[in-house]
């Protein structure tokens, strides 16, 4: 009996561990959360159908293969601290690699990623921004999962006008 429970736990834990980290923020009153699902991305590809040029086609390819985009933002000090601590431990545990780090106008933006199927793609793009927005201290977590072409991801910034969204424009590929 005990063994079974343990086995079950062992099965379930990895899933919980992954998701639980930031899910709690979604239901917090002090946190603004926006989640865009893969179905939304699929629908968007139906709408942006003027794919005459290869640029648009590349963008559609990007969107079609996105799984989820989640943005969590808060201006409350204690939550910001908690977020920073959670991000630090998440990065350590989650085998994420640092992509880039930008500091400007009192903002620090850090990007992390998980490698994808090949060098051009990542399977997760994680951004953590600490700084100010409209004269208020603010922290923003932006997490995108799916098959992400880093060369295309900056274009998302135009379509999703969300906190921290414009930071995506900074993502460069070398």
């Amino acid at each position, binding site marked *: 009996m005990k063994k079974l429970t343990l086995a079950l736990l062992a099965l379930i834990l990895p899933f919980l561990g992954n998701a639980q980290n930031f899910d709690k923020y979604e239901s917090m009153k002090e946190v603004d959360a926006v989640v865009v699902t893969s179905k939304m991305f699929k*629908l968007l590809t139906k709408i942006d159908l003027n794919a005459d040029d290869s640029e648009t086609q590349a963008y559609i390819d990007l969107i079609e293969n996105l799984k989820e985009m989640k943005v969590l933002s808060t201006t409350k000090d204690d939550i910001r601290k908690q977020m920073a601590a959670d991000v630090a431990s998440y990065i350590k545990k989650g085998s994420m690699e640092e992509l880039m780090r930008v500091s400007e106008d009192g903002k620090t933006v850090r990007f992390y990623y998980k490698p994808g199927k090949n060098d051009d793609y990542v399977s997760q793009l994680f951004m953590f921004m600490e700084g100010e927005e409209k004269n208020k201290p603010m922290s923003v977590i932006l997490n995108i999962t799916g098959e992400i072409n880093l060369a295309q991801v900056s274009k998302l910034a135009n379509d999703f006008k969300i906190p921290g969204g414009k930071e995506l424009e900074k993502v460069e590929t070398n």
Partner: protein
Amino acid sequence: MKRSVLILVLLSLGVVSCNNETTLQEFYVEHQNDNQYLAFDIPASLLTGNNASLSAEQKATLETIKKVNILGFPLKEENKDIYEAEKERLASILKADKYKQLIRYGGGTKKAELYYLGEDDAIDELIVFGSDDEKGFGIARLTGNDMNPESLIRLLRSFEEGELDVSGLPQLNGFLD
């Protein structure tokens, strides 16, 4: 050992069948005469006025929209318990796979979720579920027949540009206040 597996299986089956039990439509029918609720059932033809200036394509899109129905639950002192329970019930109905979640938002006491029913190029129903723990919750459904998302968006844009006459709408606003 075996028994616990059996229980697990039964439990999971129970969860699955519960989800399939009620649909949003049934929930709506169940509550449209409930005095805790406000219910509106508005045919699309009533929402729009004279649309003679619309193009044939826009008219065709408009034709695919059947009606809008809205179910609102205004929160009062005395119905707080029911509010929580009913909100929870709606949330669990919407967890069924056929309701495809597009986007969800939460901030402060407010929450909003957008769903659709049907295929991604032929939408049968567009659903907005919103709640504010200080005011109440509401669910709005735009039902139609194979609504095409692309033409729907185009129609909405023409609405923004003032081409689409929605003279029926102001009256509705009065209702909700």
